[in-house]
Structure formats: structure tokens, C-alpha cells
């Protein structure tokens, strides 16, 4: 199974390396979200500093929605998904391979978004370990959720508009816990940062468990 997951993940990363959609399209879009938010808040440094944690997660969530859509679009074209399955790959391996590739891409997006916050919003990090732990758990949770819903909507006529509607409400717990953890790490809140990171880990494990059960029914019909 692990070998199959690695095959799918490597395939997706190779496609990404050649097309560079994450770097050329998704990362700029995420940075644009940060800039647009700054306009919306009238470039008020106090307000932007207080909301920086939330802005990071909103921007990364938008990036994850775009990444999930892209990840399954390349399989819908020309019946690639059927080819993968006819090639003997288990549905679970396809889902987890794509989720792993998506997680790595989301982490790259997260690094750029964090750099954007540091430069544009002049925030200071007080707990780097908390930022890294919450960032890894949160982006991985977005990726698993994105892969699940990407598989659910692959090949559907209205997938473009449906995917955000399905994904964003379900990803809300990650948004909430991630924001609280980042607020603590950035020094804008005195909450329990590690408790929120633990909640992120619980949400991630829940998504993985659901994905494990749902991979078969979703990809057999895709």
C-alpha cells in the first residue's frame, strides 16, 4: 500500500513540478488574498496584526480549495482515474497518494503565506515551535479534507462551484483551532496554544479515519 501511495504522490508532484501551478498560480492568489484583506481593513496595522492568524488560515484554505480542484481535474481529463484503477492501484492508495501530494503543496503555500504575513503585516513570532506544529497539522487536515471532497466531486459538471461550498464548512474546525493556535504563537492572545494544536491533530485523525472508510465508495464510482 505504501509503495502505491508513493507512486501516486510522486506522479502528482512530478506533474506539479512540470506545470508549476502551485508556485505560479496558487501562491500568488494566496498572497493576493492577504493584500486584499489589508485593503478591506483600510491597512490598519493594529487590526491586521490582531487578525493575522485568521488571515493566514483563510488564505491557506483558499489555496487548498484551488489545489484540491486542480489535483482531481488532472485525473478527470482523458479518464486518467480509470487508468490508475485499471493499473491495479487500490482506491485508498489513490486517495492517500493525492492527499500526501496535496499536503506537501499546501505546506509550500503555507510557508509563502507565513512569509507574506511577516513581511506585509509586520507580525513577530513568539513561539516558532507552535507555529510549525499547528501549521503542519492544519495544512495536512486541509489536504485530507480537500482530497476527500475532490474525489467526491471529480467529473461532476458543477464541481468548480460545488467544491468550495462542500469543503469550507467542513474545514471550519481547522480554521477555528488553527487561528487560535496562531494567535497565541504570534502573541496576540494568551489562550492555550498547544490545546488548540492538539484539537487540530484530533481533527486531522478524524478526517484520516473518514477518508480511510470512504476511499472505496468514492473512487469506485468516480
Amino acid at each position, binding site marked *: 500500500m505504501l509503495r502505491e501511495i508513493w507512486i501516486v504522490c510522486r506522479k502528482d508532484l512530478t506533474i506539479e513540478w512540470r506545470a508549476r501551478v502551485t508556485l505560479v498560480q496558487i501562491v500568488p492568489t494566496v498572497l493576493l488574498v492577504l493584500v486584499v484583506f489589508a485593503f478591506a481593513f483600510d491597512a490598519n496595522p493594529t487590526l491586521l496584526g490582531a487578525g493575522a492568524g485568521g488571515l493566514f488560515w483563510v488564505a491557506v484554505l483558499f489555496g487548498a480549495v484551488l489545489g484540491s480542484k486542480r489535483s482531481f481535474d488532472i485525473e478527470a481529463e482523458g479518464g486518467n482515474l480509470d487508468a490508475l484503477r485499471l493499473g491495479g492501484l487500490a482506491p485508498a492508495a489513490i486517495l492517500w497518494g493525492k492527499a500526501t501530494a496535496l499536503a506537501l503543496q499546501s505546506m509550500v503555500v503555507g510557508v509563502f503565506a507565513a512569509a507574506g504575513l511577516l513581511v506585509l503585516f509586520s507580525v513577530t513570532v513568539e513561539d516558532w515551535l507552535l507555529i510549525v506544529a499547528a501549521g503542519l497539522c492544519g495544512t495536512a487536515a486541509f489536504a485530507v479534507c480537500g482530497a*476527500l471532497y475532490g474525489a*467526491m*466531486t471529480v467529473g*461532476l*459538471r*458543477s464541481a468548480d462551484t*460545488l467544491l468550495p*461550498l*462542500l469543503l*469550507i*464548512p*467542513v474545514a*471550519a*474546525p481547522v480554521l477555528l483551532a488553527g487561528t487560535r493556535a496562531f494567535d497565541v504563537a504570534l502573541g496576540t492572545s494568551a489562550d492555550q496554544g498547544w490545546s488548540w494544536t492538539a484539537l487540530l491533530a484530533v481533527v486531522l485523525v*478524524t478526517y484520516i479515519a*473518514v477518508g480511510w*472508510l*470512504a476511499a472505496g*465508495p*468514492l473512487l*469506485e*464510482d468516480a
Partner: protein
Amino acid sequence: MTGSLATRVLGAVALAAVAVMAILALWISPADEVQGDAVRLMYVHVPSIWVAYGSFVLTAFASARVLWRTRSGAGGSQGVIADRQARHWDRVAGAAAELGVIFTALTLMTGSLWGKVTWGAYWQWDARLTTSVLLFVTYLGYLALRRLPAESRSRARRSAVMALIAVVNLPIVHFSVDWWRTLHQEASLELGPGGARNYTGEMYWTLLYSWATFTMVALWIGIHRYRVLRLEELAEEAALEELLAARRAEYENAGPRSTEQESNERAEQVTSR
């Protein structure tokens, strides 16, 4: 067309129960010492969310049955029976989810009105309110997924997975008042012996009666909705059969055509555009 003797009786009883509920809630039950007459909104607000919870749990249960009945391996006559049962449970899931969405909307609306009277604002960014809206939007997404044109088995399985993911939101909504500091009051009633009650006396019994009434109304609407979904499926099947019969008749009347004739017709169509 979707009515039967049982549903007509149920409908009549539900209607009468609503009338009694209105009397109990508006006249018999006293005003609250703190909330005043605004408490009367609770007799719609609280039972609505209970019915919505029940509907979403039923959706999840029916969805699990769909996945169970459509798992790989069943073939032949067993496969046909399994397919029929899967379609039945899929209709149950669809009808229940629609009810859940309607009753959640009712909960949000009555909650907003109550909030305006009590808090002075229709909306507060409170954990219970926010998670309820997320629940509502999640199931709107579920209904949108169900409405997309797709092969029925595939659509049923995708929707079933979505319903099983969405139901995870229920405990988050319900326990949000305990997990986070919220403006929203704690649960009105707690189940089990020694469970806390925010309401006592006539208020308590009116609340329970309202819940029974709402359940009856939901059951009545749900049965009709299930039957409408079945009729829609039958109409689709009949339309498909009709189309196939028309094509067969067309073919039999015209007789088999040569490939040359077909390509000539196609060429004529292209030149006439």
C-alpha cells in the same frame, strides 16, 4: 397523489396538535421572569433543532445503509434486491436531510428574533450560532450534491459519504455551549436521570408537547417527500422507456439504413446550417 388513509389521519392529527400547541404556547404557558414573552419563541426554536438533529441522524443512518447495500460483491437477483433497498434508503436520506435543513432554517430564524429581543441584535458571533450556520451550510451542500445529474448509484454513494462526514457536526453544535464560552444559554433539557432543566412546570410540558407536535409534522412532511422522490424516479424511468420505445418504433418503421444513407443525411444537415 402521495396521500394515503394513514398519512391523511396523521396530517389531520398533526394539524390539530399544532393548534393546541399554539394555545399552550401563547396563552396557557406563563411568561418568563427574565425573558418575558420572548420565551414563547422557545416552543418553536428548541423543538425545531431537536427535529433537525433527528433528521440528520436519520440521514446518516440511511446513508450507512446505502453504502452497506451498494458494497461490491452482490450480483444477480440479490444485486437487484440490494439495489432496490439502496434506492429506498437513499430516498429516506434525501427526504430526511431536506427536513433537517428546513427545521435548521426555522431554528436560525426564530433564534434571530429571540436574539433581537433579548440581546438587542439579530446575530452574535457566538459558538452555538456559528456552528449552527455551518451545519446548515454543510447540509445545503449535501442537497446540492444530491441534485447534480449523475448515475443514481454513484450519486447515492457520494451523497452517503458526505452525509456521514456532515453528521460529525452535530455533537460540535450541541456541545458548543459547554465547550466554549457563549452567549447562548445551555441546553434546555438534558437527557437521563437527574438531567438539568432550564424549564419547569407548564413551560416544561409545553416544550415537550411542542417537540411531539413538531415530530409529527416532520413525519407527515417526510413521508410525503419520500413518496414524491419515488414518483420522480418513476417518472424518469417512464420517460426513458418512452424515449427508447419511440426510437425503436422509428427504427422499425424506417427499416435498417445503410451507412451511406446516414453519412449523406449528416452531410445534408451540415450544409443546411
